[in-house]
């Protein structure tokens, strides 16, 4: 049941991804201080933004599920959270790969890093909750509640993480990189490509989720 819209979306995201890779590796000039390692930012930053959007999407689906009780919203939340966890895992990995040569450490307790790590932990917990929560309507309710709590928590983590920074000396002022226009274009291309990729993955995962629910319903009838 693959629809033509999905095919178009998948091919579109393929093309955009190739363009974004070209932008990151060829079009954008080499950064003067950090060198080639800076190019990881054209992947890292879009992933970070879209990962965050994905969790917002899961929270939104949670609110809609609690409001309407429609099963589709549960599938939307599951799909968004799963891809969000995938993207934010990549965010943390690419961030560490960048930080090692530039900051001289894999990890530092910068507020943005703390917030992303906690966000990642919360939604990994969300996936564990889904797998442990048993039957369908209850699982959907629990997942919706936790998705909302988790997302509301994000600004709180960020605000409190700034206290950590206030207590320990600030060694790095991160993300204060001025972007030359070609770099901004490469970043923009990355953002478009990863957004399309997210949407393509999301639609596929959503369809899978709906099919899973149908199979479960059919198996229930057979018993």
């Amino acid at each position, binding site marked *: 049941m693959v629809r033509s819209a999905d095919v178009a979306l998948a091919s579109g995201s393929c093309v955009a991804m190739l363009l974004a890779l070209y932008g990151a590796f060829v079009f954008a000039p080499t950064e003067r201080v950090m060198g080639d390692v800076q190019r990881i930012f054209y992947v890292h930053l879009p992933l970070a933004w879209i990962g965050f959007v994905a969790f917002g999407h899961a929270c939104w689906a949670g609110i809609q599920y*609690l409001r309407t009780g429609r099963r589709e919203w549960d599938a939307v939340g599951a799909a968004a959270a799963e891809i969000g966890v995938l993207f934010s895992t990549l965010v943390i990995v690419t961030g560490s790969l960048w930080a090692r040569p530039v900051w001289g450490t894999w990890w530092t307790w910068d507020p943005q890093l703390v917030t992303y790590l*906690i966000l990642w*932990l*919360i939604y*990994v*917990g969300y996936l*564990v*909750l889904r797998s*442990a*929560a*048993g039957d369908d309507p*209850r699982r959907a*309710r*629990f997942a*919706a*509640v*936790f998705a*909302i*709590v*988790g997302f*509301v*928590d994000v600004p*709180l*983590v960020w*605000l*409190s*993480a700034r*206290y*950590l920074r206030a*207590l320990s000396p600030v060694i790095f002022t991160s993300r204060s990189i001025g972007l030359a226009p070609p770099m901004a274009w490469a970043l923009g291309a990355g953002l478009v490509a990863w957004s399309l990729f997210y949407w393509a993955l999301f639609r596929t995962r959503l369809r899978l989720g709906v099919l899973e629910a149908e199979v479960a319903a059919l198996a229930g009838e057979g018993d």
Partner: protein
Amino acid sequence: MRALLALIWKDLVIEARTREIVTAMSLVAFLALVIFSLALGPSAHLVAAAAPAAVWVTVSFAATLGLARAHALEQEGQALRGLLMTPVGRHILYLGKCGANLAMMLVLQLVVAGAAAVLFTGAFARHWAGLALPLALGAVGFTAAGTLLGAIAAETRLREVLLPILLLPVVVPVIILSLAGVNAVLEERGLPELLRSLKLLGAVDIIFVMLGVWLFAYVVED
């Protein structure tokens, strides 16, 4: 209001008769503190510096255990189902459970802070009045989130294993801010510094309580 007080009273009477949860929590916490203090070694300076962190780590894990047990009690004999049949609003049920959990967590904090004063640093005893506020406000946020998520975890297959996985990342802001307050008191950095973290901590508490009041009905709904 009377229903709320009755709910809190019910849980506290059960606890006073069995003393199950507070005893277990306190023993676990004491053990954790002893292990901490052994692991940190004989350096008095190191031990004193690590004290606030050790206290909060110990309190979070012991309180998570206690919360899981408190919600398991509601499952046994379908006590929660009985409560749901009474003409009491879900938000009152939540606040009642929250209040009882908070009372137990405050006792736990008292035990842990007392033990820390003996095992770690006398500063905990000297500054007890100043420490009470950041610790208690921390307990409010912790139990507000813990009561909501505890009700979820108790209904799943993993139960008490799931609760820390859900709860601990969510309460990170509470722990950080409460610790900021505790450190401000212990290092005598003055009232404005303390109030700065407490204001934020109070706001976080209010947000968690509001989330609980709003979402608890969806968790316990059948």
